[in-house]
């Protein structure tokens, strides 16, 4: 189940829903993911019944359904972007434009009338055939394809990189020179939860317990049997000893022989 923050989704085959209230990724100071935490609320008949944080290794169980944190991602199809436009000839000029991909934003400016971002990739890479692709879903090298319009005429089209602002500097747009900075990029994060129901799992655990207990009993405490028959033969007592072991018979044999030997010595 892919859930965005605030989204409520039906659980397949269940009579309740789950809502993702919060999702955060914690990182180690050295980098690397420390934890994913999804705050999940179970909604039944329209009313919330239970809220808990789901982490890897800490699933939420409700009415025989278990929810596991399995993956996460960003919805890079709909990022909220911020592009800053500057003019090298006029250091005091700076315009911050908030827009979405595909949106044509009207700007009051002598040099151009509209600005748009026609594409955004979180991890820019040039693939085969010079095609622009994203290497991963991680925002390692976010890039936006900025287009500038004068009326219906497109006067500029070029990639701007958040981590390499130099590329956005001093582009010739019509008669003027403009710089573009990809200042901000935000995409809704989603959490991927796995919902599982396995009614037979109790039997699996029962089986496991029996198998393990059986092994430890059989091999750490093997059954051995020694029987002694005492008989009176002509006024004397005669002892007949017999032994049985299912495992490690040689060792038992040695032990048994020692027992018989020590009995002989004492009598």
């Amino acid at each position, binding site marked *: 189940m892919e859930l965005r923050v605030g989204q409520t989704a039906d659980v397949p085959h269940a009579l309740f829903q789950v809502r993702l209230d919060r999702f955060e990724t914690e990182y180690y100071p050295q980098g690397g993911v420390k934890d994913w935490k999804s705050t999940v609320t179970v909604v039944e008949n329209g009313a919330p019944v239970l809220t808990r944080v789901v982490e890897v290794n800490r699933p939420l169980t409700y009415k025989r359904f278990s929810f596991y944190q399995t993956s996460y991602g960003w919805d890079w199809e709909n990022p909220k972007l911020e592009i800053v436009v500057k003019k090298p000839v006029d250091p005091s000029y700076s315009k911050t434009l908030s827009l979405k991909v595909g949106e044509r934003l009207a700007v009051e400016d002598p040099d151009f009338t509209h600005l748009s971002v026609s594409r955004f990739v979180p991890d820019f890479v040039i693939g085969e055939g010079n095609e622009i692709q994203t290497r991963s879903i991680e925002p390692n090298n976010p890039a936006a394809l900025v287009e500038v319009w004068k009326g219906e005429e497109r006067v500029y089209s070029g990639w701007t990189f958040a981590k390499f602002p130099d590329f956005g500097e001093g582009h010739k747009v019509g008669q003027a020179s403009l710089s573009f900075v990809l200042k901000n990029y935000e995409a809704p994060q989603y959490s991927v939860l796995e919902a599982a129901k396995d009614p037979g799992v109790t039997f699996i655990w029962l089986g496991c317990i029996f198998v393990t207990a059986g*092994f430890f009993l059989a091999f750490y405490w093997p059954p051995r049997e020694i029987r002694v028959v005492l008989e009176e033969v002509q006024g004397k007592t005669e002892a007949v000893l017999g032994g049985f072991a*299912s495992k490690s018979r*040689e060792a038992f044999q040695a032990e048994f022989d020692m027992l018989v030997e020590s009995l002989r010595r004492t009598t």
Partner: protein
Amino acid sequence: MTEATLFTITFVLYILSAFVYLASLFAKKEKWAGSGLVLAAAGLVVHTAALILRTVVSHHAPFTNMYESLSFLAWASVLALIVLDRKFRIPRVAPYVMLIVVGLVALASSPLMPKEVTPLVPALQSYWLWLHVSVTLLGEAFFAVAFIASLLYLGADTEEKKQKMDAVSYRAVAVGFPLFTLGGLVFGMVWAYKAWGTYWSWDPKEVWSLITWFVFALYLHTRIVMGWKGKRSALIVIIGFLAALFTYFGVNYILSGLHSYA
């Protein structure tokens, strides 16, 4: 004292132990074997200190990469050796077990194994890491002793030596098999159910653990039910240990899957 210093002292003690054990075996001085055992035990104590220190520094169980798990496997093997030697007296097997231990420690300290403490990925952050890995590796350490005894069985020249090796091999498997079942399979299943939502995913490591388990189960069945002994049993143990070895190394380096952490 740093972990590296303790680890080096451990290494030296294990080498000395192996040396004394081998000298006792080849010079036929049976009393020296006792000193070999004492040196191994001293190494185990220092090794334990090194593992504890690493746990304190890293804040997690000391078996999360190849260096750590090799070191722990060596530790478990020494423990298995000491337990079996104290209980059943195995002066002929012990020297070779110590050689394997020295090999494991040498491999762990080789430059191929990165030694830095790395933070744990979310999937490994669980107390099941302790239970699952330690008990499994302890079981495999007993398999290693059984493997050596089986090799020695095949190489033995007298009937008395053969019988002794056969018995040692059986005892090591009898101790190791329940541990491997509990740690490798059962604890692994419980943890997988908690972390991934399914107790069995046919991941390469799971499959190979199961193969290992089947081979040793075959050993025990043929022995206890059908009365197999000697050469056939020794060969099954050797195959079983090779399967365990592949589960341990092969799956980490050749096949990738859910267990690819190292």
